[in-house]
Each structure stands twice: as structure tokens, then as C-alpha cells.
């Protein structure tokens, strides 16, 4: 570091130590502000009616006001005290015990009607000097100026002078103040914008049936705020802001050699030993191909290994998801009870990506998760407010980036529509955000519908490039041997290829070769497991194994486990 840079850094540190920040008490707002609200700052909270200005400032005041540092809340014409108290007291942050002492309401209606700003200023000054508050709110400041449209009222204090004196007075009395107003964006040349230390813009956009609220820290003197628009929601607890995570903050952790078992028999082998820890995996397939079954096994395996897991579902209720998992012998409910599994059900149809991210990140911390399952991206896209669907690709990029930065491994499912290979993931062109892609599909073999999968991509890792059969059994998904001797797999309608050259296994029928290949693929297996993996009925498997033993292709140990004596053809 150069001397000049060191000096600048020191100056910044000294200045920052003189500028204390107040915690706003509004979840997410401190992060947007760059650490909190500068103490003794003179702030403007602007926005159209119904955007949540009053609720935001009330929440901040209730979080900070005390008997020692009370708040003076000046109401004007637009916000009668009775109405405000009547509605605001329903919020969780509203503590009636603070009213009258720590928070004092003063109505300026009469002074405002008088039209003389010097009278208004005198009343504010008198109250400030009497109460000696730590916080002052004027709600609404705009209505003090109502009807003026920038014109001066004869004999009154000019607006610019009024604002200057008010700001000076409040700062001198070491007051952190908030002026609320219904301003439009084209009014930013209004003198109050110039004088204010902080300007916060609240807005809401209605698109079809959804409403999206956003806040922007347009200006904060003395500290670097988080740029851009941040979505927020108003609930019974008050405002919650979801800071927009910029891409550059989502630094990925370096990849390790650790692999996570998928819990799907046969899948880890073809993925080079499992999913690389910290990867984002996408499992794409048509409806009914077993995506959720694979995802559930990934969840169950994580829990079995003692890991924390977060599951985000959009298309079914968590209870349904848990019941379905239980039917496949995965009792996930116990894990939710002991705090190792967190189920998130997000389906309000007006979600923002940042809101989703905030909820998922909170859950990741809560259960110390190493695995996150998003089932499915298609459902996620539908759950988003229409305004955000346009930017789904970019939003998903930020979501996955922010999640992988925490070190978790993400398993996402997505639906494929249309015919293969032209079929697209419904969340089109999202494949670039993933490290690993597994694609499932239906194929027709001898008039029967079968399922196959292929590993399309594994970043920085060797993997099988074959089409592998898989079946969904009572116990879950099981990956079988590769589908060989067929052509036209990508069309969905397969044809058996005529034998070319000498057969792989001399003296074996196709059925027998298939069972042997499955055994070679697994390595060693009981008869029952082999029957299941190969999709061959148990009596038929028993007959074939006897023949394989007879021909010297396989051997059974005393425990009944079969081992192949032939090398795999692939």
C-alpha cells in the first residue's frame, strides 16, 4: 500500500469513528444503509401513498426511542394521530408502553393550516427545546407545504429558509430526524432533497395481481450505501427489507476433493464418486420422470450422513412432501423436529429473488446446512412476481452465486418440455449457472416406456457419457446399467442395433447379457438387489445367475453375494 493510500485509509477510519450509526430495527435496512443510519442525520423518506413510509419510520422510532432519548412525532394534516395510532398499533413492533413517554405525538395541524412556516418552525423548536428528543419525525412534511407549489405565502418564511433552519436546529440539538413526504421522482430538485443527509425512496409496482414494494437509499452522507432497488414486504411484524445481493459479493469457495453421496444407488459411480461438494447440480426431466424422488434421496442421504439440509418446495406443501418421502422409507419428519432439516414452502406468487434468498440463507444458518434442494426451478419461476420473471435468469444467477458462496451444495430440479433433444428446460437457458447437469427422459423399448438418464455436464470432473437406465422402485430411484445396442435414444424411439462383430458375451442371450452388465456395473451384489437394479424379476434373475455361474461369467460367495468375472465392455 502506498503512503498516500495509507493516509487516506487513516482519514476515513478517523471520520468513521466520529460518525456513529444507529441500528434501525428494520430487518435488512441496516445492510442497505451500509451499516445503519448515521446519528443526528436529517433524512427524507419519500414515496407515493401506501408505500409504507409511516410504518418504516414508526418501526425505527419504536426500536430506538427511550425515556432518556425520546422521540417527538409531529403529525400534520395527512396523518391524524388517532388514525395513525389506531392502525399502527396492530404491528408487532408497536409497544403501547412507549407512547406518551418515550414517544410523544404532537399535532401540527393548526400551525399547518395557518400557512405561515415561521409559526410551524417556532412550534417545532419549542417542542424540541422542551422535550429534548433524540428523534424527530414530521409526518407528513409534504402536507406542511401543501398548496404552495413552490410559491411563497406572503409574510411567511421562504420554504428554502424554513428547511435550512429546521435542519440546522435539529442537528444542533443532536436529533436524528425524518421528514416524510409524498414526492414524485421528478421533484428531486426540491430544496429538501438538497438539504437532507439521507434520502430514501419507497415505491410499489402492481403487475397483474401482484404488488412488489421496493426501497432505494438514494443518498446517504458519509457512508456507502448498497446501490439499487431492494424489495421489501410489510407483514404483521412491520417491514422486512431484502437487500439485493450484488454479483461481486458472491465469491465462490474453492472446490475441494470432497464428494457427496447422492443416495441414489448407481448414480455416484457414474458421477465419478458423487456430487463435488459446493457444486450446483441441476436435474432436468419431463413430468413424472422421478425428479423429486432423486431430490428426496439426496436429502435423506445428507441427513443419514449427519448433515443439515434445507429443502425449498413450491409445488406441494411440506406435509405432502414429507408424507411422500415417508412412503419411500425416508422419515424426514424426525429431522425437522430435531432441527437438522428445514422445509421452506414459498408460494405467494409475488416473491422476489432476494426475499427467497434471504429465507434460504436464514434456513441454511439455522440448520447449519451443507445441502440445499430447490424443487423445482419451474415452480420457483411461477412463484415469483411477474415483474421478476423477466429477469429470472439473472436473478437465478445471483441466487445460486450467493448460495454456493456459503459452501452449500445445491440440488435443483427443473422440468423439460417438448421433445428431446429439442426440448428445453422450462427455465430456459439456466444451464450456465450449474456445475453439473443430469438429464432424464422417457424412451420406448419394445413398446414399453422406460426411463434413462445421462450426465450432460460435470465441471472439472470425469463422468459417464452413456445413457443409463433407471427405475423408480418402492424404495426410490435406482440407476441401472447403460443402454447399449440401441440406436435412436435421442429420438425417444429406440431400435435394437444389429450385432456388429463378435458378441460381447459369448453364449448369452440379450437378457442374460443385460443382467451380467448390471452386475459388472455394480461390482458385487446380492441376488435381490441385482434383480431390482436390472429390472429383472427375481425368479428370472435366479435362473440367469445360475447360468452365468455355469458359463464362468459370475461367482457367488458363501454369503450369497455375486461377483462378475467378466470385464465391462465400456
Amino acid at each position, binding site marked *: 500500500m502506498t503512503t498516500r493510500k495509507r493516509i487516506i485509509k487513516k482519514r476515513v477510519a478517523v471520520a468513521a469513528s466520529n460518525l456513529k450509526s444507529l441500528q434501525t430495527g428494520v430487518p435488512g435496512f441496516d445492510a442497505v444503509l451500509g451499516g445503519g443510519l448515521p446519528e443526528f442525520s436529517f433524512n427524507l423518506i419519500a414515496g407515493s401513498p401506501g408505500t409504507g413510509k409511516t410504518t418504516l419510520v414508526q418501526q425505527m422510532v419504536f426500536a430506538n426511542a427511550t425515556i432518556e432519548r425520546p422521540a417527538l412525532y409531529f403529525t400534520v394534516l395527512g396523518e*391524524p394521530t388517532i388514525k395513525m*395510532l389506531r392502525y399502527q398499533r396492530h404491528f408487532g413492533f408497536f409497544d*403501547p*408502553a412507549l407512547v406518551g*413517554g418515550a414517544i410523544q405525538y404532537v*399535532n401540527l*395541524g393548526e400551525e399547518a*393550516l395557518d400557512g405561515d412556516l415561521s409559526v410551524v418552525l417556532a412550534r417545532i423548536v419549542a417542542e424540541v427545546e422542551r422535550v429534548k428528543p433524540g428523534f424527530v419525525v414530521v409526518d407528513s412534511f409534504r402536507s406542511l407545504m401543501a398548496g404552495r407549489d413552490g410559491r411563497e405565502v406572503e409574510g411567511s418564511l421562504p420554504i428554502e429558509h424554513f428547511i435550512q433552519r429546521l435542519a440546522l436546529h435539529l442537528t444542533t440539538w443532536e436529533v436524528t430526524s425524518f421528514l416524510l413526504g409524498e414526492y414524485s421522482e421528478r421533484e428531486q430538485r426540491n430544496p429538501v432533497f438538497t438539504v437532507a443527509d439521507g434520502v430514501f425512496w419507497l415505491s410499489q409496482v402492481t403487475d397483474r395481481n401482484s404488488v412488489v414494494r421496493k426501497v432505494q437509499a438514494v443518498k446517504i452522507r458519509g457512508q456507502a450505501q448498497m446501490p439499487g432497488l431492494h424489495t421489501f414486504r410489510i407483514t404483521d411484524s412491520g417491514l422486512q427489507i431484502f437487500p439485493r445481493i450484488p454479483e461481486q459479493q458472491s465469491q465462490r469457495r474453492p472446490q475441494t476433493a470432497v464428494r457427496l453421496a447422492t443416495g441414489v444407488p448407481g448414480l455416484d459411480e457414474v458421477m465419478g464418486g458423487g456430487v463435488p461438494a459446493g457444486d450446483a447440480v441441476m436435474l432436468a426431466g419431463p413430468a413424472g420422470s422421478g425428479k423429486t424422488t432423486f431430490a428426496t434421496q439426496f436429502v435423506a442421504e445428507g441427513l443419514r450422513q449427519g448433515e443439515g439440509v434445507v429443502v425449498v418446495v413450491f409445488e406441494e406443501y411440506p406435509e405432502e412432501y414429507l408424507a411422500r418421502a415417508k412412503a419411500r422409507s425416508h422419515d424426514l419428519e424426525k429431522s425437522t423436529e430435531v432441527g437438522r432439516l428445514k422445509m421452506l414452502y414459498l408460494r405467494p406468487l409475488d416473491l422476489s429473488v432476494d426475499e427467497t434468498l434471504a429465507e434460504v440463507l436464514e434456513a441454511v444458518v439455522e440448520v447449519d446446512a451443507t445441502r440445499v434442494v430447490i424443487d423445482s426451478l419451474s415452480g420457483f419461476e411461477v412463484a415469483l412476481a411477474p415483474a421478476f420473471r423477466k429477469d429470472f435468469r439473472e436473478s437465478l444467477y445471483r441466487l445460486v452465486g450467493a448460495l454456493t458462496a456459503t459452501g452449500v451444495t445445491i440440488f435443483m430440479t427443473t422440468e423439460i418440455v417438448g421433445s428431446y433433444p429439442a426440448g428445453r428446460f422450462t427455465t430456459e437457458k439456466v444451464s450456465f449457472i450449474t456445475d453439473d447437469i443430469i438429464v432424464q427422459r422417457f424412451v420406448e423399448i419394445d413398446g414399453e416406456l422406460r426411463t434413462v438418464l445421462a450426465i450432460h455436464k460435470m465441471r472439472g470432473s470425469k463422468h459417464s457419457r452413456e445413457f443409463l437406465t433407471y427405475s423408480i422402485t418402492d424404495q426410490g430411484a435406482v440407476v441401472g446399467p447403460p443402454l447399449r445396442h440401441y440406436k435412436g435414444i435421442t429420438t425417444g424411439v429406440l431400435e435394437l442395433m444389429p450385432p456388429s462383430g463378435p458378441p460381447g458375451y459369448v453364449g448369452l442371450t440379450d437378457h442374460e447379457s443385460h443382467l451380467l452388465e448390471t452386475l459388472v456395473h455394480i461390482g458385487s451384489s446380492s441376488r435381490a438387489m441385482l434383480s431390482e437394479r436390472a429390472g429383472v424379476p427375481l425368479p428370472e434373475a435366479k435362473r440367469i445367475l445360475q447360468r452365468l455361474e455355469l458359463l464362468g461369467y459370475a461367482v457367488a460367495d458363501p454369503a450369497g453375494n455375486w461377483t462378475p468375472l467378466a470385464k465391462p465392455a465400456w
Partner: protein
Amino acid sequence: MSTEVRRARDLTRSLTARAARNDPSVDDDELAVLIACERAFVELSRSLGAPGFGTLLRRAKVITERTHPLLGGMHLGGLAPYLGGVPDLVQLHGGPAVIEGLEAILDTIFSMLGGLIGIDMVIRLVERDPPLDSTLVEDPK
């Protein structure tokens, strides 16, 4: 009598008792209740605004007149809410009847406002400083 009405009445009694207790020169009950009214009017005008409180007072007077007709002889202030004509009423109807009427007006104001924002909030707005009688702000539920 509902809990809200009872707590409104308790607030009236508390304000009157405090007026008598805090000022030794207050040697009659009419004066004590007038001071209580003034205190309530000042505090509520401050927080709700004079026009807002004035409206509330006018409605309270109309309602209370049904049970206390003598209040018809009382006039209200213009912009700044106040009760006028009290001495004449005392002369006409006697002190105890007027005191009862004034207390009834306060009860009505507190009950009406309590219905809108909660009686606990009304107590805090009127008392403002830490209340002398802390049992008033505790919800008996």
C-alpha cells in the same frame, strides 16, 4: 359496565384526584374537575391536534347531554377546545350536578377515544409523563 368504560372512569377519577392533591389552593370539587378537564384537553389537543380534539369534544358533549341535560347550557370554545359557562351552571344547578356532568363528559371522551385507539393508549396520551397511578395502565386481563 365494560372494562374499557370502567378504566375510562378510573382515569377521570385519577385526574381529578391529582388536581386536588397537587394544588393546595384547589379547595372545591368543581375546581378540581375543571383542572382535570383542562389537563386532559391540553394533552389531547397536543397529540391529536386542536381541530381533531375539538371534534371529539363536540361529539362527547352531544352524547353526554342525553343523560345530563344541564350540559346543554355549556358552550364549547371555537378553535381551542374549552368548556364555557361552568360558573353559571353551578349557580343554576348546584356544584354536585355540574361535577357529575363534567366527569361524565370526560368519561365519554376517554371511552370514545379508547374505542378507537385503546384505553391504554388514551391513558398514556393524557398522563404523558410516567403516570402517578401506575395501576391505570395495566390491563386487568
